[in-house]
């Protein structure tokens, strides 16, 4: 079962080759047996999973669930609320927090008949690129446990790669779905900002956050996105989709498509193996009928990373202010007044990366600095959007790396935060501009770790993006993590 895609598992349930509880049990066994090596999951409640799976099975038999995902297990990143399961955000601050509601995305998953298998590890409050800032310990890359799985949705990506679950939800604020998917050799989808409701996603940076999907391939990701993406009145930034007929995905999705490759993205941060992987992917796409052309994104190349960190940290400093020990979550033991309650609770409850970003954010919003930093970052963002809008007048897609290289080793990133931030160069632009993007496995580096490329499209052009990715993946089949064979 662990080699199967979500839709194959769903089909098996519909065809009565196995049941939803059987599928759930099998993945629970995988987690119980193998997750101790990787640390993908923070919370798994087998009883709840099995009772949900049994309930779903009854509804399948009654004909209430007929969709392709009914009965399929899915993991949920632990910054997305699911009723009755604690949502920790991998922070001491929320280590015992149990939300009394489902995130809209989770609700829609459940309405499609999916079974929430458990909550996956992440960088604390999704702040990080390695899943090492988690208060629950770091997740290991299943391809090589001495390497990070990427982040912040590292638990979700590693779980899918290791075959502990067929698919998982992540959140992508600056690359947090695409980059770990690339590091773990699976497919990561960051949809257009606003297509999936953020209600119930614990906010890191509200104007950039979007819930995405990590799966075996683009077909699974597209199916799950399709089940989640809908206008939600509870999220005022939610959008109406514009795609008319999403399925089936075309296998001619690259024919006649104009694809730009930003020159700047193959220089600088990107290592030569990564650049070569992009060149080779471009060759395959050309063979499939695409027209490839080098483009330039000078503003994006120069300003995307600083603009991203200024805006994300500013919003984070405000979004995370609510964690103060007054209403829920961690509270310090002793305090004299509420100032001390705040100070001690927040000093003890947050890890250092979260503190760094909140302090940076508070600084750039403060009187005397707002104009110099925050406002300028917003201006840069506007221009970056403009730059992409210009490109998409002439091009259907943009191709680039999903990260500068494969996964770094554990422990080599956090000590040099600025270097770590710079490595987000290829992913943050899609968040600043609200674009849909996917990362797709593109072979292995010399060290045996996966490399990932990224395709981006214009806002709401999911159909174009998915069709192109599907055509590519017909030619370049999904990678199989050796750990799935060894186990």
């Amino acid at each position: 079962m662990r080699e199967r895609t979500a839709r194959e598992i769903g089909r098996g349930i519909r065809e009565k080759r196995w049941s939803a509880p059987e599928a759930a049990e099998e993945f629970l066994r995988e987690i119980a047996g193998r997750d101790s090596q990787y640390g993908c999951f923070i919370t798994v409640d087998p009883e709840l999973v099995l009772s949900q799976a049994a309930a779903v099975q009854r509804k399948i038999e009654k004909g209430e669930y007929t969709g392709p995902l009914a009965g399929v297990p899915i993991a949920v990143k632990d910054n997305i609320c699911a009723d009755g399961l604690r949502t920790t955000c991998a922070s001491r601050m929320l280590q015992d927090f149990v939300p009394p509601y489902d995130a809209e995305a989770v609700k829609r998953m459940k309405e499609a008949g999916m079974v929430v298998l458990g909550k996956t590890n992440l960088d604390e409050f999704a702040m990080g690129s390695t899943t090492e800032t988690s208060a629950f310990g770091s997740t290991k890359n299943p391809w090589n446990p001495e390497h990070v799985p990427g982040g912040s949705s590292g638990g979700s990506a590693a779980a899918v790669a290791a075959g502990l679950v067929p698919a998982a939800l992540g959140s992508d604020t600056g690359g947090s779905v695409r980059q770990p998917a690339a590091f773990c050799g699976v497919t990561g989808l960051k949809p257009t900002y606003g297509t999936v409701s953020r209600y119930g996603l614990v906010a890191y940076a509200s104007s950039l956050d979007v819930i995405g999907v990590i799966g075996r391939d683009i077909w699974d990701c597209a199916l799950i996105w399709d089940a989640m993406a809908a206008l939600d009145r509870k999220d005022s930034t939610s959008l109406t989709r514009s795609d008319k007929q999403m399925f089936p995905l075309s296998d001619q999705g690259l024919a006649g498509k104009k694809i730009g490759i930003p020159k700047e993205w193959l220089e600088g941060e990107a290592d030569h193996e990564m650049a070569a992987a992009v060149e080779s992917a471009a060759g395959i796409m050309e063979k499939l009928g695409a027209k490839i052309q080098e483009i330039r994104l000078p503003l994006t190349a120069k300003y995307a990373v600083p603009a991203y960190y200024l805006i994300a940290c500013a919003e984070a400093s405000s979004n995370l202010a609510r964690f103060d020990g007054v209403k829920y979550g961690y509270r310090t033991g002793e305090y004299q007044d509420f100032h001390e309650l705040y100070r001690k609770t927040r000093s003890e409850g947050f890890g250092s990366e979260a503190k760094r970003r909140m302090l940076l954010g508070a600084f750039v919003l403060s009187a005397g600095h707002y104009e110099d930093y925050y406002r300028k970052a917003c201006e840069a963002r506007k221009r970056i959007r403009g730059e992409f809008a210009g490109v998409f007048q002439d091009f259907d897609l943009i191709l680039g790396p999903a990260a500068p290289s494969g996964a770094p080793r554990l422990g080599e990133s956090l000590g040099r935060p600025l270097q770590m931030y710079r490595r987000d160069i290829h992913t943050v632009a899609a968040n600043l501009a609200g674009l849909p993007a996917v990362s797709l496995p593109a072979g292995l580096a010399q060290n045996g770790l996966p490399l990932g490329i990224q395709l981006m499209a214009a806002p709401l052009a999911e159909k174009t993006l998915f069709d192109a990715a599907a055509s590519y993946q017909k030619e370049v089949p999904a990678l199989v993590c050796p750990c799935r064979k060894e186990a």
Partner: protein
Amino acid sequence: MGEYETVIGLEVHVELATKSKIFCGCSTAFGGEPNTHVCPVCLGMPGALPVLNQKAVEYAVAVGLSAHCEITRVSYFDRKNYFYPDNPQNYQISQLYYPICRNGYLEIEGEDGTKKIGIHEIHLEEDAGKLIHEENGGGSRIDYNRSGVPLIEIVSEPDLASAGEVIAYLEQLRVTIQYLGASDCKLQEGSMRADVNLSLRKAGEAGLGVRTEMKNLSSFRAIAQAIAHEAKRQEEILSGGGRVVQETRRWDENEGCSYSMRSKEDAKDYRYFPEPDLPPLVVSDEWMEEIRGRIPELREEKKARYRIEYGLSEYDIGILTESRQMAEFFEDTVSLCRRPKETANWLIGEAMRLRKESGGGNGYFSFSPKHLAGLIRMVEAGEVNRTTAKVVFEQIFRQDVDPEVYVKEHGLGMTGDAEELREAVRQVLEQNPQPVADYKGGKEKAFGFLVGQSMKATKGKADPGKIRELLKDLLS
């Protein structure tokens, strides 16, 4: 104060009368057990998101239009960041950079005639919860029922020069907002709160002096006292050669003085930035015209119309238009009975007296205009006399009785049958030979006595004029 003149600007917070909160569906009802009108949004739970209440926007726009403001067609919300336990998110959603209404004015009757008081802006924001401190170090509790109740903050220009003008402006604001139904504007209950910015300058100077901001003013009386006190305090400082410190002060109503809360140097940096969870607030032409179309006739328009249509005194018009409920009650009654002066007399006299007696404030009358109109018609037709009518009115006021039914059931109808009345008066004369003799002997006082006796004999239901006529006839 000869040497200095007072310059005052007001920041007035008004709770809007929406049924639900500004960013979630929770009830705004006053009272309620602590933390019963709450949800993930107004508790600041992780993952919860605000959704703007359109009704709150409509009220704000209606107030803005009534105060001659420009409506900002694309306005934005901003986050005001500060840590305080009554504020569940530790930021308040407000509007700093692009408030919904700007550049308006209200007219007041000042000491030198009509004066325009500029309104700098009106912005939308959310209220906070309430901290409840227990006695004897028992700790603090928080009730979030008020968290997320919609507010507008109306910021005036520094155009006010005295406590009198401030009260007149607040009255004008209050009446306007009440007419719009946008709030009940009760200072005591906190649905209207005014902060007073006050500075002094040498008479005739153009610039502004250093100002202080006074908070915790819970009645018009407190506002007037605080203004007088603060003007005097600043004058003493200035005439002693000192400098006023820019600060926020708290008025202590019991002590009759104010205390410094924080100076400008301690002023918080709220780190405002645009609220990323809410899209720009767009007020389209259609929406604005729809809101404008729903604005009722306001007090000044009503007053002008009453002068022409009803020919009432300024005093009567003033009282009848004090609240929209009163005015509408008056108009409804007049439309039924066509007797404006009579209607005004009943409402201003008996109705207000009874309301005062029953301890009611500016609430609605609970009886039907139809019944008052009916009573007015019965008096005019001579079916009841005025004394009886007052008794009947009290029953209308208290129990909304139908006057015709009530009069019939209680036998209060005026004795109209001439023969019956003549017989009754004749009997009175027979039973009182002495007063009759006195009257005939020239004692006019005895006549009054005989009128009284006749009224008594008819149980007050007869028309006193008729009785006089009969007596004169029978005694002649």
